[in-house]
């Protein structure tokens, strides 16, 4: 699956899409593929402050638990509640199945994230191991 060029990525396999001061966050196709069948997603409540590099929730497949790391800092403005009952949509289309939206605290943090091309290279190397 192609990695959208207008998203930014982390080495912990989250993606971030920025629209003005709003950031939308999900996990990458590579992440859902390594996790396998996703059966549980735990997300923060609206109003929660999240910090770049810190965990903000978790995603679980049958076989594993994986923490979600915030690509950038901000305050949660919206949560994709549909994932509570249909977490498998993350497997179907990870780049559409967003998890949270945040009000960015410091838009300059975005510059530290990976581009689609860099992430694809990174994920490919990791999968090769």
């Amino acid at each position: 699956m192609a990695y959208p060029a207008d998203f930014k990525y982390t080495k912990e396999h989250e993606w971030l899409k920025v629209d003005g001061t709003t950031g939308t966050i999900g996990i990458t196709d590579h992440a859902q593929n390594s996790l396998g069948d996703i059966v549980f997603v735990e997300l923060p409540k609206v109003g929660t402050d999240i910090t770049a590099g810190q965990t903000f929730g978790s995603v679980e497949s049958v076989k594993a638990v994986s923490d979600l790391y915030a690509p950038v800092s901000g305050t949660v403005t919206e949560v994709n509640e549909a994932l509570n009952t249909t977490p498998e949509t993350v497997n179907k289309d990870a780049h559409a199945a967003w998890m949270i939206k945040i009000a960015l605290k410091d838009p300059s943090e975005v510059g530290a994230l990976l581009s689609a091309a860099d992430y694809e290279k990174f994920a490919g190397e990791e999968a090769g191991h």
Partner: protein
Amino acid sequence: MVDFSGWDMPVEYPRHGGLMKEHLAVRTGVGVFDVSHMGDIRIHGPQALAAAQHITMNDASKLAVGQCQYSAMLYPVGTFVDDVIVHKLGEDDYLLVINAGTREKDVDWVIENTKAFDCSVEHLSDAYTQIAIQGPKGAATLQKLTDADLSQVKFYWFTYGTVCGLPHTLIARTGYTAEDGFEIYVPSDEAISARVWNAVMQAGEEFGIVPCGLGSRNTLRLEGALSLYGHEISEAINVWEARLDRFLKMEKGEFIGREALHQAKASGIKRSLVGLESIERGIPRDGYKVMDLSGKEIGYVTSGSYAPFLKKNIALAYVPVDLSALDTEVAVEIRNQPVKCKLVPIPFYKRPKKQS
């Protein structure tokens, strides 16, 4: 691939659909597992039965030739060396199928504790490739590959037949999936093993067969509440606690662990294995703490997962006996948050009564 007691094993086969699909295939159709990591110990000779009786807790004298039984080898204190399936191959001839993780320990244990008996002990683990064909369509799949009449083989019995042209192949109606199925033992030669594996895949194609990895092996056995060494049973857990006493035959006479189990029962069992089901959102997993509703730690989860067939979050756990009644509510600590669970009967899943 993951390292499993020195074996390179797949957690799942993603190209065939992955863990969830594997699990459901075994519940509704057929799945095939390479379980060559399982070990095999043969005890034979004039006192083979007496030796088997001495080192296992079930009553091997009740076995007919061609029959198997679930059993366990115990330490003198009544805890587990390993759980085993004892097959009676012939008069004075028994095969113990053991776990991979405990293989060397088990072999040493059997050799050491059968010394006083007139019998020989052979370690055959490397001689066999063990393939498990599991699910309601397991019999129909395997029947295409063998001249043995599988309809005549009852659950926990075995026979010999030609399988894929290999004469005298041990075919047992056993498994670790809480489903009907067979386990076959073929020579561990790589080319032969691959040929049999491929033949099974082809024979099962019309039933939607999928290869199954360690992940679904674990979720299938968990739904059936089948014990896993190092989790529900170990050197620190006794037979009463593990609730495996239906396989414990105190009346059969002396065996290792008997005296301690007798005393343990007399002095009262303190904890018990129970089944849990989440009633709030959260998946209890191996090692998580179990607490009472006031937040006091009372036990721990031995195995827990999302259950793909039951579509619930379930776990096996040890809790004090006085808190082990069905419907008791407890909490499992998941990422520092208490998640309410209730005690439910085990096994969580029972297969439908015989269809063939």
